[in-house]
């Protein structure tokens, strides 16, 4: 857990908004090590999703450096950033973003189609990923036939199937009831432990925060507090 895989250095992000500019992130400095289970917490507009998008190379900083897996995001071409996402980054979205006309199997398989895997390798990996999330019996179902919790599990399987180094989850529990939210968070926590995948969340959900080992509080685009909660939780539990 001592290897830095994400380094955010003096990152500022500004968006044009009419005639003016809106500053979403102000001079952010953060480091993440491999295997962390952390999250950005804060109210709407605090910059959580923007930071997640920059780490996921879907966006780039206006100023500063965002280095992910040794690659500086703002210097990557479209092709290079696509390759980075394809090989090393998995996404879990609030609204799952499953491809509606594909089956569960095909949705999970999609990420592997972009890599040079054989059909047999893909099948093995997809079934393994579905087993992680407990949906191996639903491989032939279409997303429209799934409950919210099942849909989000498919999204997790799709993010995990290529065994990425980093999974970025943007409000993954926002559309789920408490039971399903705990279910998917337990699954992610387990995968984090088993595969040593780095999980980063953007959330304002208390249920998610319960599972995080590191919580970074964002306010108005700035880091208000960066707390390691694993130690506290261990201390509380031992008392």
């Amino acid at each position, binding site marked *: 857990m001592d290897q830095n895989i994400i380094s955010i250095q003096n990152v500022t992000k500004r968006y044009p908004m009419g005639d003016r500019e809106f500053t979403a992130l102000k001079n952010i400095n953060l480091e993440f090590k491999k295997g962390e289970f952390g999250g950005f917490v804060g109210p709407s507009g605090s910059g959580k999703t923007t930071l997640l*998008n920059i780490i*996921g190379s*879907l*966006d780039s900083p206006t100023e500063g450096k965002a280095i992910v897996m040794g690659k500086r995001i703002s210097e990557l071409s*479209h*092709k290079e950033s*696509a*390759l980075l*996402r*394809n*090989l090393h980054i998995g*996404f879990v*979205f609030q*609204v799952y*973003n499953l*491809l*509606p*006309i*594909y089956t569960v199997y*095909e949705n999970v398989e*999609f*990420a592997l*189609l*972009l890599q040079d895997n054989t059909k047999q390798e893909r099948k093995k990996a997809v079934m393994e990923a579905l087993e992680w999330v407990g949906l191996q019996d639903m491989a032939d179902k279409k997303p429209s036939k799934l409950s919210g919790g099942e849909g989000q599990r498919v999204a997790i399987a*799709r993010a995990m199937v290529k065994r990425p180094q980093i999974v970025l989850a943007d409000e993954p529990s926002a559309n789920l009831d408490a039971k399903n939210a705990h279910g998917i968070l337990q699954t992610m926590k387990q995968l984090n432990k088993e595969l040593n995948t780095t999980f980063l969340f953007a959330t304002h959900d208390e249920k998610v925060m319960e599972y995080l080992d590191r919580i970074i509080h964002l306010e108005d685009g700035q880091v208000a507090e960066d707390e390691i909660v694993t130690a506290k939780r261990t201390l509380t539990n031992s008392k």
Partner: protein
Amino acid sequence: MKLSLILAFRNLLGAGLRTWLNVGVLSFAFVVIIFYRGMIDGWNQQARRDSIAWEYGHGHLLHADYDPTDPFSVQDGHGILPRNQQQHLSPILLRQATVYPQGRMVPVVLKGIDVNQNTLAFPTRMLSGSTADIPAMVGTRMAKSLQLKQGEELLLRWRDKNGTFDAANITIAGIFDTDVSAVDNGQIWISIEKLWTMTNLQGHATFFVADGGYQPQEIDGWKFKSQKELLQSLDSIIQSKNIGGSIMYLLLLAIALLAIFDTQVLSIFRRQREIGTYISLGMTRWQVVGLFTTEGTMYSLLATIVGCIYGIPLLFFMANTGIAMPEATQDMGVSVAGTIYPVYGAGLIISTIVLVVISATIVSFLPARKIANMDPVNALKGKLQ
């Protein structure tokens, strides 16, 4: 590319009715274009074949004073060609005359033809086999317009070479059926030897029809028009028909392509989240552009398959039974058979498929290229306008 094909195929099948509506319209355009072009090609081939067989042979050697487009040149546009220069040539002599069927007076062109010729398809044995004093043959159109029947006698008045009027009864020895109205309407065919005698124009011809063995040469007082030159007017008529037809089928194709374009524009707007998801999963923007373009192209490929399923039996049936042409088209001045058999060549089918596939690819690419400039973050939120 393989991935684009797999995904595009999945996406199209997944889109259900929308896909099949587009494919249906496009396949209809396909079949109609092939049918129409096959029809024009069939007509073209038939018209050329019949015009060569009945009128043009392998070319005409025309008297220098004779202009086929000027009826006044018939009077003096004739002459004698030395015997040794008549090899592979069959003489035709034209004279103006008048006939009087059922008390009416009808001006006609009297045409003398060698009864032993084999260059043109005229059944000249009708003339050689008749015992009548002046046996004549007419085409079905002429027979119909003058209400003539085989064996009927008809008063003919003509002028000899000195301009003196003469008249005699001719006998309709036979009625021939041809698709070439240019050798039928307003014409009466008799033996050229008889015509020479009647007009005192012994050995004269207005023009000669060449057979396949004729080698064109410069002959003073005569001009040679090759088969190709003679077919030029027919070619230009067919060309103009082709252009007219092209406008019709391009309009049809445009409607089908507009449906694809519209679907693509709507797709890109409606599937923003999907586009964002593709990019987040590791596709490059141009891969997504390629995917959407391939989807559009696959409409045309599916349309080819669907078009083949119902088009091949339909077009095969049409090619065998032919399309009956209305009677009015017989008087168009260009050879039109009573039934036209469409001809579907490999070139026609391949060029139509290529035209439709390329057009579909272009109209799919035009809206899809916008994806290259899409912000994936906004696409994921579905916020693009």
